[in-house]
């Protein structure tokens, strides 16, 4: 199943990676909307569990779990703040409903963060750059994005070289208290910044020399074409939104506390 017209990007990991980023983004926005509509635990939990098949199909379990761990800290903070607020504003009492509410809010936060995380984990930068180019976003932004991604490994290598060069002049980055250590990074940061500026100048020269700004209507060597999988996802998204609307208006959702 090839998404691009005559293009094979190396390292195509999975069918999820192959999906059109624009459709995936629409899906993520839909999840976003649904998460805002519902404030009860059960639908939010279902939303959260719905991510998992995508994660497994895309083989990004390890990275996804890692991002979950990262979100856990902020999630705990949100939970505690919510509980504390209730505690202090309703006369030092904590009801089961309040706790359930706090859990819902936390869960909503997690769902929002994780759905975006899944989006980025299952979309390669090339793909994303192309989607940006094909969308209504001004070309300058898409270009800035892809160029930044292109130079990340270059800058990383350069940072390492600069650190080596300064270490070779006796700079000891590990020594000293916090303040000294921050100052020690000045001889690394300045060459890095100066080099980045020089690099952008050279890039600008090359861009100008290749007709940058010639016309407003740029064409594109590649084209993003929608395929069956994309329509499938679009159908799922529409389905989710339809079900959401139906449930929101017609189906009351029980609270957990009612069962206790």
């Amino acid at each position, binding site marked *: 199943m090839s998404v691009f017209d005559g293009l094979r990007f190396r390292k195509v990991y999975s069918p999820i990676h192959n999906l059109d980023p624009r459709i995936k983004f629409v899906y993520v926005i839909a999840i976003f909307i649904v998460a805002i509509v519902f404030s009860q635990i059960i639908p939010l939990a279902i939303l959260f569990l719905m991510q998992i098949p995508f994660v497994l199909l895309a083989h990004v379990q390890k990275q996804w779990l890692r991002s979950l761990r990262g979100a856990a800290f902020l999630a705990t903070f949100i939970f505690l703040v919510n509980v504390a607020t209730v505690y202090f504003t309703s006369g030092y009492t904590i009801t089961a409903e309040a706790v359930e509410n706090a859990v819902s809010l936390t869960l909503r936060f997690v769902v929002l963060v994780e759905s975006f995380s899944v989006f980025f984990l299952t979309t390669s930068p090339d793909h994303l750059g192309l989607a940006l180019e094909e969308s209504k976003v001004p070309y300058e932004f898409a270009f800035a994005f*892809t160029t930044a*991604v292109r130079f990340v490994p270059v800058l990383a290598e350069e940072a390492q070289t600069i650190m080596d060069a300064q270490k070779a002049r006796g700079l000891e980055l590990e020594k000293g208290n916090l303040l000294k250590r921050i100052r020690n990074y000045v001889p690394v940061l300045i060459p890095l910044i100066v080099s980045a500026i020089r690099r952008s100048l*050279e890039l600008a020269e090359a861009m*100008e020399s*290749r*007709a940058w700004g010639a016309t407003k209507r740029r*064409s*594109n*060597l590649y084209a993003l074409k929608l395929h069956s999988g994309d329509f499938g996802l679009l159908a799922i998204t529409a389905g989710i939104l339809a079900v959401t609307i139906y449930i929101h208006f017609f189906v009351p959702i029980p609270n957990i506390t009612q069962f206790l």
Partner: protein
Amino acid sequence: MAIIEIKNLTYTYPGASKSSIDDVSISIEKGEFVLITGPSGCGKTTLCRTFNGLVPHFYQGDVKGEISVAGINTLQHHTYEMAKHVGLVFQNPENQLFALSIEKDVAFGLENNGVPREEMRRKVDWALHQTGIYDIRERSPHEISGGQQQRVAIASVLAMNPEIIVLDEPTSFLDPLSAEKIFEVIHRLNKQQGITVVLVEHRLDLTAKYTNHLIVMDKGKVRLEGNPRQILSSEETRLMGVGIPKATLLYQMLKKESFGLADKTPLSSEELANQLLETLLPK
């Protein structure tokens, strides 16, 4: 009619006390392979950038004189207009490639011009084949060698089908073998496609043999211009600090000792070797 005509061009960078090019006049015919050399700071890099208008449009600064490239007055036209006629290849391979795949980089200029996809595909593939990088067209620029990167840079200006290609020390960062390959590509483009080439280089040992028109600059001025065989034999050239090919130097040393070699100054090891064989082999 000369394809590049420069008359009394003087240019000073903004804030500079001295001009970088001083009253330079050059005439280059269509299809020529021109070599420009000179010590660091002589103005050859600045001169390159006048061919497509980067000087003065990108760099601002003070410009006097006339310059016409492919019939267009660069002083009064945008660089993007010049891009269709003259392509510039720069020194640092890494900083000329900004797309995530090679063929997208080669297509960049065409995309900027709104060229329709079918036509673009054909031109990109043609440029990739001309520079021998068709097989790596889907790789990312970071994965390939410096020599390959420079070939991508050449392909990306070639795709726009310019009449002129200007290269500013394109092999500075490359090892001699990769450098030779680049010069071969450029030479072929000149001979087979009739593209006018202006090459700025220090490595005369690798490039002098390709040209009939050598320009030596120093301190912003054109000091010597003409056939490399004459220019590289002159003492003035050597005193300017130009790196004369060893074969040529050896020839001159032998000539001083009345060795009996032919009068044609050799520009490469082959030429000198042939001359020596003629003189030393028993008839």
